[in-house]
């Protein structure tokens, strides 16, 4: 992806970052993001983010796993080489349920994590560091230059007056 820079403000409390996010959203900005050391409750609303789409991946992956398990157990023990085991029917479905179940879970779980990586652009080799404490106890908010209303000075001013601890010009984040 092309590198997109912007202006980032740093705040020290959860409440202020929430407030700022609200403010920025209401100010009509769209291309902005908050950076927090931990999931801040209510941040999605504040930034106006829609619900994650990953559950769909999970669902269909799970479905695939289930169907694969069903087909595989059936094909191996009833089609490819049917063998009389303990006088049981070739396709002893009840006995295959555990395997099918486990495959369902496995597919679903791995797919979800895969989706997460895709969604968050992970793994990333050289993540830009604006302030190392952003993963500890500071909160940041960045407005990207790709935003239609982007104007670094206005933004800096806005951040300042909303009590930013610091404001950085960022070449990329």
């Amino acid at each position, binding site marked *: 992806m092309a590198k997109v820079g912007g202006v980032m403000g740093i705040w020290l409390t959860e409440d202020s970052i929430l407030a700022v996010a609200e403010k920025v959203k209401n100010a009509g900005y769209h291309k902005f993001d908050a950076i927090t050391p931990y999931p801040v409750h209510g941040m999605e609303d504040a930034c106006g983010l829609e619900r994650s789409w990953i559950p769909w991946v999970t669902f269909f992956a799970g479905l695939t796993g289930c169907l694969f398990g069903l087909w595989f157990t059936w094909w191996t023990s009833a089609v490819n080489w049917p*063998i*009389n*085991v*303990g*006088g*049981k029917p070739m396709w002893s479905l009840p006995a295959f349920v555990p395997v099918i179940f486990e495959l369902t879970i496995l597919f679903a779980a791995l797919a979800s994590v895969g989706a997460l990586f895709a969604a968050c652009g992970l793994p990333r080799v050289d993540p830009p560091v604006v302030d190392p404490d952003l993963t500890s106890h500071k909160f940041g908010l960045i407005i990207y230059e790709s935003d239609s209303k982007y104007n670094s000075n206005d933004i800096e001013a806005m951040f300042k007056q909303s009590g930013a601890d610091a404001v950085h010009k960022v070449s990329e984040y």
Partner: protein
Amino acid sequence: MQTDVNENSSTPKYWLSLEQWRNDEGFKELAQREFLSSPLAEDNKTPAGGWARREFLQLMGASLALSTFGCVRRPVEKIVPYAKRPKEIIPGLPNYYASTFVDGYDVVGTVVRTREGRPIKIEGNEFYPGSGEGLSARGQAQILSLYDPDRLTGPVQNLVNAKRTNKDTVSTNWVKAESALKAALGEGGVYVLSSSNPSPTSRSIIEKFVAQGKGKYFEFDILDRSTFINSQGRVTGTEIMPSFDLSAADVIVGIDADYLGTGVASTAHQRAFALRRDPGGSMNHVIQFESMMTLTGTNADERYAIKPSEQLAIALKLAESICIQMGVSFPFAWREIYGSFNDTIKGFPFAKKLNSIAEKLVKAKGKSLVITGAEASMTQNQSAVYDVVNFINGVLGNDGKTVKYSNSVSSVRGSVASLNELISLMNQELVKTLIIHNSNPLYTLPEASGFRSALAKVKTVFYTGDRVNETGIGSNYIIPDHHPLEKWMDVENISGVLSLSQPTIQPLYDTKAFEDILLQTLGSTQTWNQTVKASTLAKVGGSEKSWVQFLQKGVYGTVENSPKSGRSYNGSPLKIRLDEAADFELVLYTTVGIKDGTLANVSWLQEFPDPITKICWDNYLCISPKTALDSGLNEGDVVALTSNGITLDVPVHIQPGLNDRVLALALGYGQKAAGKVANDIGVNAYQFAAIEKDQIIYSGMNAKFKKTGQQIALANVQGHHSMEGRQIVVEATLKDILEDPQAGQHKHKVFSLWSEHKYLGHKWGMAVDLSKCNGCGACMIACQAENNIPVVGKRHVLNGREMSWIRIDRYYTGTPENPDVVYQPLMCMHCDNAPCETVCPVLATVHSDEGTNDMVYNRCVGTRYCANNCPYKVRRFNWFNYSKVSNPLKMVLNPEVTVRSRGVMEKCTFCVQRVKAKKTEVKLADRKLQDQEIKTACQQTCAAEALVFGDLNDPSSEVSKMQRSLRSYSLLEELAVMPAVKYMSKVRNVSQLKGADNHKKGGHH
């Protein structure tokens, strides 16, 4: 068709390379350490020369060595074809040779199966009168003695000392040994001592030899039967060992007889006996008075635990009341003695029964039989007991009907008298040279007999044994005879019936037929082989054709069947010795497996659990539960046993059904120089025996014991001895069975949740008739021989790790004082709904479309889940690399059966290799498979014909018929595993079952 397998010598390095290949699969030395307890632990030292010359190894060896290691590693393999292939040998196909197994007095016609010139299995010869296809455990095990690693590989000279106790031998050559013998012959005073020699030709040669050497030929058996023959002489005038026809007897009373287990012609007896244990036909009634629990006793309908000193009283009492009932006069000469027993007889717990037993005998006169003669009967008054018993048979008119003197057992020839004569001759130093053949007197004869000291006076002693055993140590030259399977021999066991044993392999080692040596020394031009042929040819009809027929059939002549009129019986005075009652009487007995100890170095027999006690790898002092309680002894406690002034430390085994005053100890153990397997196992009970002028005393000696405080763990293969009221062996009385064939069974309604699989074509199954099975255990060894089942050694047996694919469970019912015994052969049941298959993760055990439960060793990863889930626990696991067998033992392996490696499960396969072989044969011949054409190893060897294998899809097959019988039931039916093996209930010819209460408890499940 003599096996002229020709001599190709191969490159020994080929073998070494193979060994190396086998050795490099990891941690071998650890494995070695693990095996120290196991007879298989020896490293693969190859005996000098010998086996390496056998061409079949060149052919089969590679595949044997490859074992069950998958397609992973591929060493370069060599194939060495024959230079000149003997026409009768086709690589991959077995050849069969008729032979004869001589085991004391149990002589059985056999057929030896060979592969590429290598004997791998012995089976009964169906043409042999009496025993037929049946073969005892010992007969099956004989094959392994051929490959015994401890056999001498050539003649040796012993640097004897004055006492003749020197162990150092130097190997010599035949020239030296024979020249020594020649010199001795010239010198005169040449005597020969051997056990009963059943070969007329051999006897004549020996006689000729000793005549030349101005000596004498003595025959003597340590398990002596001469006193019985003498008694026959006293009572009837003819000194013979009659043969008994059990199939003709409706009532059999045994007084310390073991005609099924270890007695004369026991294999034949088992067959005849089983014929009369079929509730369908007329079932015999069997009564047994015995002081040690024997195989016979456990199969009796009524069994009374007595002590040896009571035999005579019982015999006389029976004789007396029979005489009264038959209106015959009771011999006057006996009255006084009889009177002296009055109180004893009144004292019997079964005193009242004796009259009714006599009644039963009289009712069945002419079709009854009173029998005795086991070691337990050899008290100081044995001849008196024998006289009375013979007299009773006479009075009952059994003579010529159930007691046959027309076809007497002519192979019983040895006598105590001759032994004593020899000893006295030696003491007078008249014996310059003694040749000891086919016996081990220095081990068997107690010191008190004075044989050793007498032997010290003999100048040169030759010994024909195949190892440096006790006698070997005591002799100057050991000139090893061929193994019976390497040697020509004509055998006349039953007079008028001639059988032959022919070489099945070129002699493995530098041995020589004893008779050949004699002939050579005598300067005869004929070889032993020619002599045998010449002398036998005449008897079998003279022509070359008849000779070939004889070789093919293995038997010539028939058993006299027309009943002879009885001989005249007279009650000659009894010579008896009465001393005051001892508080314990010692009984020395022989076991089915070890018997006199001749095959003691065969590991199969050492690990063969005794049918009654189920203990292997030891002999032990049997004491009654009450005695144990009184003297505070537990199983395995070691006591110091004293009798005849000798004291030995033995562990005790608590034996239900033993008289409280009896101590019993097995003979044949405690050998010091028999070989790696047998050495120092148990104690030598022969030391307690007493050799008298004309009798050996094994029974009734005054004995006492003292607790030593030590403990010896006895390797018992059975965990528990009561059926806990479960329906395992269904028992019923004859009366009940005749009313309701299902008597004693509790049927369960079993159904399946899914549709069963269809079995087109064959569906193999088996039926086991528990009424016929007498528990002798021949099937176990047959299976071991057929299926390459390893021996694991005492330590592992103690851990429950014995490998037997078929085992015989023995349960006691009723009270410990006087229990009934039931036997149940248990092999894989090949269940249609096999629990083992369902749980195997890798499909290593699955069902074939012929209904068998296949076990694929090479697929098995060894989770042991199948064994856990098998309700019958018939699966065995290779805890270590048991299959790593040392040479030459390796040569006994059956190439048709995979040798299992470490870590895989194994079990009974219904001898699938035999099934496959027959099916191929049928296919190649474009014909249809007949019922009973395929026999499993266990079925084939079973003299009682209790096991029957066959096709369940064939309604006319024997097995289908048996399984349809209402008497048959499936074991643990309620589990709905649908076994392909079914049992037929055990029927006793009694009015009331001892274990009856158990079975009531065994009600509904």
